[in-house]
């Protein structure tokens, strides 16, 4: 089999990232809608902007952050490069470039998904409908993932797809935890209203798993530990990091790549941050700091991979 053109590796890596990003964004909007159900103008919609560091950009062109303006900013707005519509458009453009390397079914689905997003209007995003739209987006992302799982040839392109996907997923889990933790914990790490726990866990499809692990009750730090470290939970950061490690290993053992020290250093640093960072008593302040460190380490692995494999030199 011919070698993979570096630019296509890049396209596939970002295809994986963008699809995962769109799904997570839909999850976050969905959870926020649940939190804010009865107060469409409350502070909750500003929080989501803070989470993505978009507040300033958002308020430049708009007067206030409420359910309607924020959800359309993150779902429909093609001028906002972080919106679901933009992510899927980018995913599709990347997929178009590597159309010959992915399966027809993957391409067809992303194409249909993209077309259906193009039909959405602001009316479709009314608060009582937002959850349904988010569910639809999630389902389309998951369908794509299922199609990839069942049809994508397990060659080198698949490795880069998985690397993109798991790096993005790890990053998104940290964001979700970052946003949710303030609600489930007070300043000293003690528990707040349990409704928020279940919302946070349900948003990552982790509620039942968590309940079966902690049947007798639990603390906010148990939830943080679960989302960060439970290697049986598919969205846990530790599991994502393991997958990244395995795919990097596979590039060497199965696809004839030599080891890149820069990538290996970044990966070790990420693993080290993850395993040593959190400590025993988890307070919101400490968690935020830890999550910042993790996000930097994840970003570094991503840029080292791009530099070593995916930038044509």
């Amino acid at each position, binding site marked *: *089999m*011919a*070698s*993979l*053109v*570096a*630019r*296509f*590796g890049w396209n596939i890596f970002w295809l994986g990232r963008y699809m995962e990003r769109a799904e997570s964004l839909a999850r976050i909007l969905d959870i926020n809608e649940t939190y804010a159900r009865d107060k469409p103008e409350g502070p909750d919609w500003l929080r989501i902007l803070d989470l993505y560091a978009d507040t300033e950009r958002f308020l430049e062109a708009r007067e206030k952050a409420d359910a309607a303006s924020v959800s359309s900013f993150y779902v429909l707005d093609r001028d906002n490069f972080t919106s679901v519509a933009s992510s899927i458009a980018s995913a599709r*453009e990347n997929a*178009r*470039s590597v*159309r*010959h390397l992915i399966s*027809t079914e993957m*391409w*067809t689905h992303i*194409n*249909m998904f993209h*077309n*259906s*997003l193009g*039909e*959405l209007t602001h009316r*479709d995003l009314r608060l009582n409908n937002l959850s349904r*739209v988010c569910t*639809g*987006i999630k*389902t*389309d992302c998951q*369908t794509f993932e299922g199609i990839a799982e069942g049809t994508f040839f397990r060659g*080198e392109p698949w490795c*880069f797809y998985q690397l993109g996907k798991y790096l993005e997923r790890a990053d998104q889990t940290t964001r979700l935890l970052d946003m949710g933790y303030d609600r489930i914990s007070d300043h000293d790490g003690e528990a707040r209203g349990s409704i928020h726990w279940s919302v946070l866990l349900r948003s990552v499809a982790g509620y039942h798993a968590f309940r079966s692990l902690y049947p007798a009750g639990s603390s906010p730090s148990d939830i943080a530990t679960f989302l960060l470290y439970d290697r049986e939970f598919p969205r846990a950061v530790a599991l994502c990091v393991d997958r990244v490690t395995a795919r990097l290993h596979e590039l060497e053992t199965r696809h*004839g*790549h030599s080891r890149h020290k820069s990538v290996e250093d970044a990966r070790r640093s990420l693993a080290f941050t993850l395993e040593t960072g959190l400590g025993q008593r988890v307070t919101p302040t400490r968690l935020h700091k830890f999550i910042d460190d993790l996000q930097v380490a994840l970003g570094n692995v991503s840029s080292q991979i791009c530099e070593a*494999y*995916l930038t*044509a*030199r």
Partner: protein
Amino acid sequence: MSLKPKKKNNGSRAKSQARPGGPLSGYDHGEFFCEMFGRNGLSHTRNIREQLAMMDAATLRHRAKDAERELFNLGITFTVYSDRDAIDRILPFDVIPRVLSPKDWETINTGVQQRVAALNLFLKDVYNAGKVFKDGIIPEELVRKNKHYRPEMEDFVPPLGTYVHICGTDLVRDEKGRFLVLEDNARIPSGVSYVIENRHLMMRAFPDLAEGVQLKEVDDYGRQLTSALTQVAPKGVTDPTVAILSPGVYNAAYFEHVFLAREMGSPLVEGQDLVVEKDRVYMRTTRGLEQVHVIYRRVDDAFLDPKAFRPDSMLGVPGLFAAYRKGNVTLANAVGTGVSDDKAVYAYMPRIIKYYLDQEPILSNVPTNICREPEGLQKTLDNLENLVTKPVGEAGGYGVVVGPKATKRELADLRRKLKADPANFISQPVVNLSVSPTLIGRNIEPRHVDLRPFALTGRSTWVLPGGLTRVAMKRGSLVVNSSQGGGSKDTWVIG
């Protein structure tokens, strides 16, 4: 899955009445040769006519809609040059196939092979000895002053003397049913992906229509192309790396480039993915540089190499042409083939075939007036309203004026252009193109069609059975180009 709630069907869908004798019963092809009925019925289409007779128009319509949706979901696209934004335009697909008899195919197959052989010998001659000029077969300045002539190709012969590896020959059929060559496409003929996709679509939407019919397969194209390109690899390279060079995702035919890459199992690259070092061409891979031996380039001559041709090209690869001349990489098609498919040179093709092959042409030309010659110009000016006048060196039907359909103003405009630059034009009588039954709304109506068979040449020439049938979807229109509102049909060769 759609994110929008499904609209309720309002129940207003009209039921069309099944006619006795099926949907073809009201069909009238008038004075034209019909691909389904000939002048008074064709024996090789009996089977499909019987199958069609058992369907009603609503079934056809319904299944056509399914096929259209599939095309839309696949994102099969064709860019219209005048509308840069519409990159997702779907080439309309008509569900009633065009059927060729074994005898039709014998003529086309041998005729195209003959023509491609002559084109290759002609190209080798004009870029080297130039005997064809010395023997007075064609005026030298017509070829060597042609804008598609590449002096950079002089005194060089590509492997096996093959210049035109991929050729698309546009054929039409006159009112007697004779095949005539309308033009040769020896540069970068496109459309082959539609031939194969149309067949897949047809077999999914109408598996019953082909029942009991012996059809020649079209799935072999990718393998045949790889094999032809492997044969023309640089000397000493037995297991060449073949790559497809595309201008990129915004090119009109990008869907086809992807299709070819998949069918051939070859990497699809852009100029930025290739680099030339010491007259060898390398591809930038995730493992570093790897040598490429054969390039099926879908980039025009002018944009191939900014060092050799247009210096402003962003699509090309600096140094590619030098590597080509050194014999370290083979380009398909060769550089400079445009001189052989020029509309002005076309007029001389019957004589060129006789000259090199000592054979009568199997496929005739449409009679052509060459306006660069005083006699041809006079004939054209005298009969402008009866002739089809074409600028030479334009692709895709741009600038073609069909006399009988043109307004007074268009004719006056053309007359002025002709007088100002006669050498830029040829003219031909209007050929009453054959028609094929085509689903229009709820009816089946005759629409004009042409045919582009695809020929692959390495050591020898192989022609893909059938070819692309293009159909002018507008009533009475003779313009079949997809860039001008044409559609396509599946083309069946009965084996």
